């Protein structure tokens, strides 16, 4: 029984698990909100609102390998304040297992994009000019100016 593993195999885990992990999530998860939420909620929440009230922007349903995901963004004074999941896949057992992981991410990631309390940023900065315009540059400037809270 102990000799079951093959020393030559480089694969760490079954391919099936790998595929399950390669979750396809709607762009809401990536902060691609400007694209997804271009469409205003037909209920008209955004047209004549007071500056401090939140507007809801409903995204198009996005097909994922596990089913359709649809979310609503709450925007107040031009700032994203929350993301509400309106519809998500639950029919298949695989979805049940992944929902617990994926749906909280839909919320937290989109918010993190703006609350941005990060120590560093990974991105493709190939030039000094690119760096100068980057979020990392802003973080460095804040640190060098003495803002050590980050």
């Amino acid at each position, binding site marked *: 029984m102990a000799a079951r593993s093959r020393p030559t195999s*480089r*694969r*760490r*885990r079954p*391919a099936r*698990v*790998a595929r*399950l*992990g*390669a*979750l*396809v*999530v*709607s*762009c809401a*998860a*990536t*902060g*691609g909100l*400007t*694209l*997804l939420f271009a469409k205003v909620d037909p209920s008209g929440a955004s047209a004549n609102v007071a500056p401090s009230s939140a507007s809801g922007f409903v995204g198009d349903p*996005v097909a*994922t390998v596990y089913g359709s995901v649809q979310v609503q963004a709450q925007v107040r004074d031009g700032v994203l304040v929350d993301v509400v999941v309106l519809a998500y896949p639950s029919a298949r057992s695989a979805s049940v297992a992944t929902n617990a*992981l994926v749906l*909280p*991410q839909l919320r*937290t*990631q989109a918010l*993190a*994009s*703006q609350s*941005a*309390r*990060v*120590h*560093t*940023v*990974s*991105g*493709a*900065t*190939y*030039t*000094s000019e*690119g*760096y*100068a*315009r*980057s*979020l*990392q*540059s*802003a*973080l*460095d400037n804040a*640190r*060098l100016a003495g803002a*050590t809270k980050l």
Partner: protein
Amino acid sequence: MNAATHEPTHHVELVMGTAVSIDIRDRGSFAARVDEVVAWLHHVDATFSTYRNDSEVSRFGVGELDADHLSREVQQVLARCIELADVTNGCFDAFVVPAPNGSMLDPSGYVKGWSIERAAQMLTAGGAANFCINAGGDVAVRGRPAPATRWRVGIRHPDEREMLALVLEVEGPLAVATSATYERGAHIIDPRTGAPTTHLASATVTGPDLGIADAYATATFVMGLDALAWIEDQPGYEAYLITHEGTTHWSSAFPIG
């Protein structure tokens, strides 16, 4: 000053065509160690830069230097690049992509990460246990930013310069490298075809070694979604991909959440 106040050390060095941020959270004097790292990075730039016609790599690339006359250091890096071309099925290949110096040799996609991994080793040897180095978006973290917190590493959003696609909360040691073409004029060539590759908006790879993660991020960007299956066979390395449509895909042990 750091010695007197025992404040954390933060330094930004413009080198290798970008900015390298060194953020040491340990208390103590690391000025000499930072100087050592800065000297190392300028040495790497002078030796490996494909923007400098007088660098060893440029002179070898255009045929002014024989392989026999290369320094041991350059030989080792180029040998590693050959291995990486093999492992990535030619999706990272330093020997067949056009370089700024006019040659077809450009190991930059490995060298930047490799040099920062070395820099991290130098800081570790100097007694630093908790730090982050960021070289133009390639990140190496060690330990923690503070005893009770983990490093929060943002992944830049491919469309919005000041937005993040994702925030990782991780403990070092870990390397994070991202490949993308959102910067003006940037493009990544598929070494297999010689044409610019456009499958993905961005590709991030995490793993133990930043040199390898850097090369794998480029390879993953070239592979597109096929990279998800490929990366499962690379022990310790994980990938997070963003498509032009905004969908995200990640490998089974990517450190998300």
